[in-house]
């Protein structure tokens, strides 16, 4: 069988476009053409299929139903260019088997359609009404063994030529499809992306001690076709900059790899190594010197001065400045039980919003503030809290490691949520521009995994009050912040959602306690104790919860039946036990105490007529049941839990 090579020659594609094309060539081209290799680089997208079937598969063209043979067969046969007696019957229909064309005949049309089918997230035209692609397509090369396939796409004719390295390779003739990789390698190109990755890794390992914290390697694989790994150095005085500033300058701007000390590695695409190294060293030094200049201006000003100037920087339109945000954070930190370090950190947490270096490196907010606090001699607890207060910055990202960090991070998230809700900017559908879902998930994780006590409703209410005092343009009552956070808790915990919903209605409001209650309910859901507690709650709730006319308070002297008195007595014992156990977050003990109410409730319903004739007796019995429900209800709204 013949081999096939199709290459789309492009002006330099972005790495993201290379990856988009790679997926489409693999998932859409190969199934059409046969098993083969997808080769993708900045200047070429190629598919190499070593064995292409020589013919297209035969095709069944279905015609009219058999019973309409007399009326329709002749017309159908004529249209298909066959005689009527050549028609076959399959599944009750007339039809004709059209033999597959030789692949050489079929390919031009097929390949043109495939090229035109490629789509990119961002695309452009370079001629009016021309092909739409990530960057201009400048050549097509298509070979079936030795023959050039006459593909034409948007006025571009495929030929037998490809191109080597832009400046050293030039035009190359491809005489046979299966020589593609060798021919390009001879022209200075490594067309196989995995091989390029391998060469880069080999080069980096040979230099040793390389790091890639921002993960630029995968991009670099698609930025070069002739990778050469080189190393350079920079002046040691730049090591006095915060290390992450140096790293970011290397990685986000230049796609370099940090090495130990004042050195870096990078991947060039050609050139004389000494010339290329000295050029890159100069560029990095320029960037670092610029950062250093900015850093020194910030440090000369100092973090206290930066914090003082926060009044001039808007946090969110309608919710005042960062100075006002810092004031709210301090209050929230106090409400969260934060100590001196977290108080101090709250005051300084936003100071770096005024730092010039943060304007240059926005991803390093928090980190830069922490470095400036360290330089100003603040205790490490304060600095660490400033550093960590944006954490976790993704759904499964790392949590703050220090107590002041957890407290400040929680305050930060409560304030972001409350401000957005108070300004009427709740997330809708997939729109969540302020990252509020992420903030709520972070809050849940700080409570559940970090063990911080967070009473969201109380904090949001307090924050709302502060916003009003600060004369923010509050339009909405942000009371639903807590609901929003609890909804996220359903996803964070590994228990069925019904248990979380049940626990939210219980006698604890603090996030971590609700989570613990939900877990305990789920763990004990099939125990005998839970069953008894559930029975007590459910039977009391079913009747009394739906009936009006309960007395305001229970009057034991109105009890007439033995079963009624027994229940009152059991309640008198269980109720304070449940309450105390819930207050101590010992939910297991609370379930055990509540279970004691199961048998007396059952007996009560067996022996006592709740809806007594005497209105006072009836009201008292309804009250008794409500008291039972409420006592057990400290464990949550158990009716949420399916039985």
């Amino acid at each position, binding site marked *: 069988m013949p081999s096939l090579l199709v290459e789309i020659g492009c002006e330099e594609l972005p790495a993201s476009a290379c990856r988009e094309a790679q997926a489409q060539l693999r998932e859409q081209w190969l199934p059409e053409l046969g098993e083969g290799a997808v080769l993708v680089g900045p200047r070429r997208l190629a598919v190499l299929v070593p064995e292409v079937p020589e013919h297209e598969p035969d095709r069944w063209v279905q015609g009219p139903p058999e019973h309409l043979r007399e009326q329709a067969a002749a017309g159908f046969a004529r249209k298909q260019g066959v005689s009527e007696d050549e028609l076959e019957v399959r599944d009750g229909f007339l039809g004709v088997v059209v033999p597959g064309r030789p692949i050489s005949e079929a390919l031009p049309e097929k390949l043109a359609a495939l090229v035109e089918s490629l789509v990119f997230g961002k695309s452009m035209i370079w*001629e009016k009404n021309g092909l739409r692609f990530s960057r201009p397509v400048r050549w097509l090369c298509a070979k079936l063994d030795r023959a050039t396939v006459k593909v034409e796409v948007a006025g571009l004719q495929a030929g037998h030529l490809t191109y080597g390295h832009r400046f050293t390779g030039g035009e190359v003739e491809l005489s046979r499809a299966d020589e593609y990789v060798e021919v390009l390698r001879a022209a200075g190109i490594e067309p196989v992306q995995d091989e390029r990755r391998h060469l880069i890794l080999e080069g980096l390992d040979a230099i040793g001690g390389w790091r890639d914290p921002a993960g630029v390697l995968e991009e670099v694989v698609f930025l070069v076709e002739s990778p050469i790994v080189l190393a350079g150095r920079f002046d040691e005085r730049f090591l006095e900059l915060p290390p992450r500033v140096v790293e970011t300058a290397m990685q986000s701007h230049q796609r370099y790899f940090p090495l130990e000390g004042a050195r870096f590695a990078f991947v060039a695409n050609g050139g004389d190594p000494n010339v290329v190294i000295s050029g890159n060293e100069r560029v990095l*030094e320029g960037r670092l010197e610029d950062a250093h200049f900015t850093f020194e201006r910030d440090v000369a000003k100092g973090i206290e001065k930066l914090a003082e100037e926060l009044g001039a920087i808007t946090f969110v339109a309608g919710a005042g400045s960062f100075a006002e945000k810092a004031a709210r954070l301090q209050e929230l930190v106090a409400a969260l039980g934060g100590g001196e370090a977290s108080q101090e950190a709250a005051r300084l947490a936003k100071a770096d919003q005024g730092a010039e270096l943060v304007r240059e490196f926005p991803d390093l907010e928090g980190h830069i503030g922490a470095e400036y606090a360290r330089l100003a001699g603040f205790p490490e607890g304060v600095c660490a809290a400033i550093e960590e207060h944006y954490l976790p910055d993704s759904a499964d990202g790392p949590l703050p490691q220090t107590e002041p960090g957890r407290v400040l991070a929680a305050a930060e998230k409560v304030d972001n949520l409350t401000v957005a809700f108070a300004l009427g900017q709740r997330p809708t559908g997939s729109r969540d521009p302020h990252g509020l879902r992420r903030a709520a998930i972070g809050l849940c994780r700080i409570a559940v995994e970090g063990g911080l006590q967070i009473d969201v409703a109380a904090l949001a209410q307090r924050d709302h009050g502060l916003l009003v005092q600060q004369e923010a343009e509050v339009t909405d009552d942000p009371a639903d912040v807590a609901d929003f956070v609890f909804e996220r808790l359903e996803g964070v915990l590994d228990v069925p959602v019904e248990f979380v919903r049940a626990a939210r209605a219980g006698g604890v409001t603090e996030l971590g306690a609700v989570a613990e209650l939900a877990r305990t309910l789920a763990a004990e859901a099939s125990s005998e104790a839970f069953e008894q507690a559930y029975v007590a709650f459910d039977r009391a709730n079913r009747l009394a919860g739906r009936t009006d006319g309960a007395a305001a308070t229970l009057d034991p002297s109105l009890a007439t039946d033995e079963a009624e008195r027994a229940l009152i007595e059991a309640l008198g014992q269980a109720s304070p036990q449940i309450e105390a156990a819930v207050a101590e977050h010992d939910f297991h003990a609370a379930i055990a105490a509540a279970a004691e109410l199961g048998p007396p409730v059952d007996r009560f319903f067996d022996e006592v007529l709740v809806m007594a004739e005497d209105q006072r007796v009836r009201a008292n019995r309804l009250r008794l049941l409500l008291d039972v429900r409420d006592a057990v209800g400290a464990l949550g709204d158990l009716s949420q839990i399916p039985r």
Partner: protein
Amino acid sequence: MFASMGAPNFQEMIALLQRYWAEEGCVLMQPFHTEVGAGTFNPATFLHCLGPEPWRAAYVEPSIRPSDGRYGENPFRFQQHYQLQVILKPAPEDVLDRYFASLESVGIDLQKHDVRLVEDDWEGPTLGAWGLGWEVWVDGMEVTQFTYFQQLGGLELDLIPAEITYGLERLAMFLQDTRTAFELEWAPGVAWGDVYRESERQWSIYNFDVAPIDVLMRRFGEHEVECRELVELGLPLPAYDQVLKCSHVFNLLDARGAISVTERASYIARVRNLARRVAELYVESLSLAEPAG
């Protein structure tokens, strides 16, 4: 590395590039008379890239960006630098080869250096314009922005132009192997810093500290009104000047810290609306004009 081989000084480098592009059929234009943030704003680019007529031009443009100044203290940040802007409308098929040859014309050996095209998508929100292209790196130094325009003034384009914008200081720093722009040799015995350091200091004071906010706010409104009136009168060229003035006043207000984040978006939208109306009127006026010749 170049000094021994006689790297061109700043003015020689400009002359070499201009000669190269003149030979490529570009009309050598001069800088525009109103402050612009980039050569793209010059009508020789923005307006000439609209409509169906081919056009090739090259010109030096001072790029005025008030917020980028650092009082002449930071040798990497300036409120004014120079661009050489080249427009090839439509972009010829071998436009990249022609561009690379221009680097050779100023003495860059393409085989010795690592010359790369790195994705850079351009968007000019005040002009309602965008395009796709690259920043061009020579040994890691960004010396040029290359863009295939897709839209200007919110309008689709009849002919897709290539815009080639050389950052002249960066290119010269590369050629002359200097660390900062201040040290560049502009002409024999004259350094870039001699010409511009004091200017950076004074303009930074003006841009950041003393430009009168209330006057600028008033001017923005006046330029906006005048632009609309000129559009009504069917005069797109003078109307476009008012767009540029609005844009520059906005940049000054921004540098003065007089515009909040939310207001920013609305100022940009106001300038963009003007740019769009002028672009539409300009295209209309082209189709009404007598055929050339």
